[in-house]
């Protein structure tokens, strides 16, 4: 169990975090510079908060009131840096045994511990390699081995996948997930990538400018985002607007587009959400059959695998996700006019959402 309640003024804003986690993986997701890496450094003791309290297991790492600030050397936190920070002058064996050297342990005991750790991570063949000869994924596993061989009480990973190229990223992510699942300690991952967050995190904490905006499972964040910021991260279309009452629909967005919905709403302010996969696209203006039809320009088309994401600018900024085959059939290109067709059923009204600031 890790609990963290900290306050620290940073250059542009104040960092205020209050969260706790059991032996699970918590992902802190946010844009760069939001204070998420700082949070990790505060837990590891590489920086000190101004106020607050950090405990792991039964041990207090930091307590402002009791004047406790345990040095990073004795906190037993495993820290995997963004660039993995392997010691370039030491071999893989020497890197992994680095932290064991200060402990009372015979040479053979140490060697077998290192060997066992490398085997657990499927990299025993790298034992004599130098860090400069390793791929990104291999470096990550060596960095993990170096931390885990010391049996840390908590594992902190700062952007563990951002240094990898696209082709290896998916594979390394799966392996990392497996490794983390086997660890019975609190694990915190910091990332700016929402996809990494939803695939690695048992719970996700969305952060902006030093504050937690929303916390929950990937599903909770997707189905009920409480702010456009969270919706933006999960790639959902999210708009604040006004209900017109008497089933006149809702008026949303800067250009006050009117959307039809099946939810009966009273007059007043509200938010609506439309999943990207609930939006259909056509190049010709469709006949009005009780659908919402929005005209716009396809500004960005992104194909990955058998899906394609299309960003549309028009009355409302929309992101649509359609099968790649459909995209091919309709022959849509960037900068072309496109009509987004949205079933009123798909326009979901959210009640407890924050307003757009």
């Amino acid at each position, binding site marked *: 169990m890790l609990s963290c309640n900290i306050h620290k003024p940073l250059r542009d804003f104040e960092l205020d975090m209050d969260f706790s986690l059991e032996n699970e993986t918590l992902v802190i997701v946010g844009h760069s510079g939001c204070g998420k890496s700082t949070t990790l450094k505060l837990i*590891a003791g590489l920086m000190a908060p101004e106020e607050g309290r950090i405990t792991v297991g039964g041990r207090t790492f930091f307590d402002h009131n009791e004047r406790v600030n345990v040095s*990073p050397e004795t906190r037993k936190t495993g820290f995997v840096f963004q660039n993995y920070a392997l010691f370039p002058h030491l071999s893989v064996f020497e890197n992994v045994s680095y932290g064991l050297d*200060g402990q009372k342990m015979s040479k053979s005991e140490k060697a077998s511990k290192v060997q066992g750790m490398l085997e657990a991570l499927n990299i025993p063949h790298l034992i004599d390699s130098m860090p400069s000869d390793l791929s990104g994924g291999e470096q990550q596993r060596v960095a993990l081995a170096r931390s885990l061989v010391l049996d840390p009480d908590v594992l902190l990973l700062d952007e563990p996948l951002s240094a990898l190229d696209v082709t290896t990223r998916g594979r390394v992510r799966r392996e990392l997930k497996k490794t983390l699942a086997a660890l019975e300690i609190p694990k915190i991952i910091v990332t700016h990538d929402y996809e990494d967050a939803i695939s690695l995190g048992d719970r996700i904490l969305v952060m902006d400018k030093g504050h937690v905006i929303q916390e929950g499972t990937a599903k909770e964040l997707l189905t009920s985002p409480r702010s456009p910021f969270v919706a933006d991260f999960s790639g959902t279309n999210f708009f604040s607007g006004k209900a017109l009452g008497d089933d006149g629909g809702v008026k949303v967005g800067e250009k006050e587009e009117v959307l039809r919905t099946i939810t009966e709403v009273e007059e007043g302010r509200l938010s609506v959400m439309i999943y990207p996969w609930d939006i259909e696209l056509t190049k010709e203006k469709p006949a009005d059959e009780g659908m919402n039809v929005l005209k716009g320009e396809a500004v960005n088309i992104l194909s990955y695998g058998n899906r394609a994401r299309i960003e549309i600018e028009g009355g409302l900024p929309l992101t649509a996700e359609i099968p790649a085959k459909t995209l091919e059939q309709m022959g849509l290109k960037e900068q072309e006019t496109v009509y987004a067709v949205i079933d009123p059923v798909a326009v979901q009204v959210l009640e407890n959402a924050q307003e757009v600031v």
Partner: protein
Amino acid sequence: MKASRRIGAVLIAVAGAIMIAFLLLPMIAVYLDMAPGKLWEQLTTPVALKALQLSVVTTFISLGLILLFGTPLAYFLANHNFPGKRVLEVLLQLPIVIPPAVAGVGLLLVFGRFGLIGQWLSGMGIDIAFTAAAVVMAQSFVAAPFYIQGARTAFSSIDPALVSVSRTLGVSKTKTFFRVVLPLSLPGLISGAALSWGRALGEFGATIMFAGNLPGKTQTLPLAIYSAMQSNLGVAIAISALLITVAFFLLLLVKLAELWPKLKRKSRKKGGTRDAQLQHS
């Protein structure tokens, strides 16, 4: 068009050749004046030997002091930001640029018998000026900035994450310095130390002002050249040849130190793959 381009190329070649000849000829001339055997004979004269001994002893003491006091300063400058840091760093570079004679005057004003600190020391019966200690101080003054600059650059180039990760692995700051920072910055430190030592060895102006030119006491090799020019040209030339040779090997050491990490990685790589192959078979 073509002709003018050819003329341009010829002009560049001529200018380059003149520059190279101007820089290399004086150094070569020193070796051409006498046969190697004769050079050696001149070097083993008592005047030259005494100067050589004094130069070796004083420059190594200077280097030791520079390493002892310069390393912590360079490490601090590489890892901390504070107001006025830029100004301080420029001021620390100044001894490289100011004329050595001016350095000698400054040292006299501080450590001379009537100087700021010198009058105190004088009261306690310690006179620094015109002793071997003054030679060391003159050398340290002009040579230290070379090492501080080199060491600071070497320390700055180390990824701070390496130090951070070392601490999370349970290794204290001090131990981290010796296990991570020092090995990684060693090539830079060696190259800085070599340049610094070379500068100390060649020190002339500040030494003659602050320590004088007393044979056997404060007369180092450059000062011995100066004196010998008036009496025994052969000795002057022989010492010059010696100093050029030492400088050449010093520069070679600096270049090797810069290449060292690459060379080491290459040899480790070979060993590594061989071990890996052995394990697989």
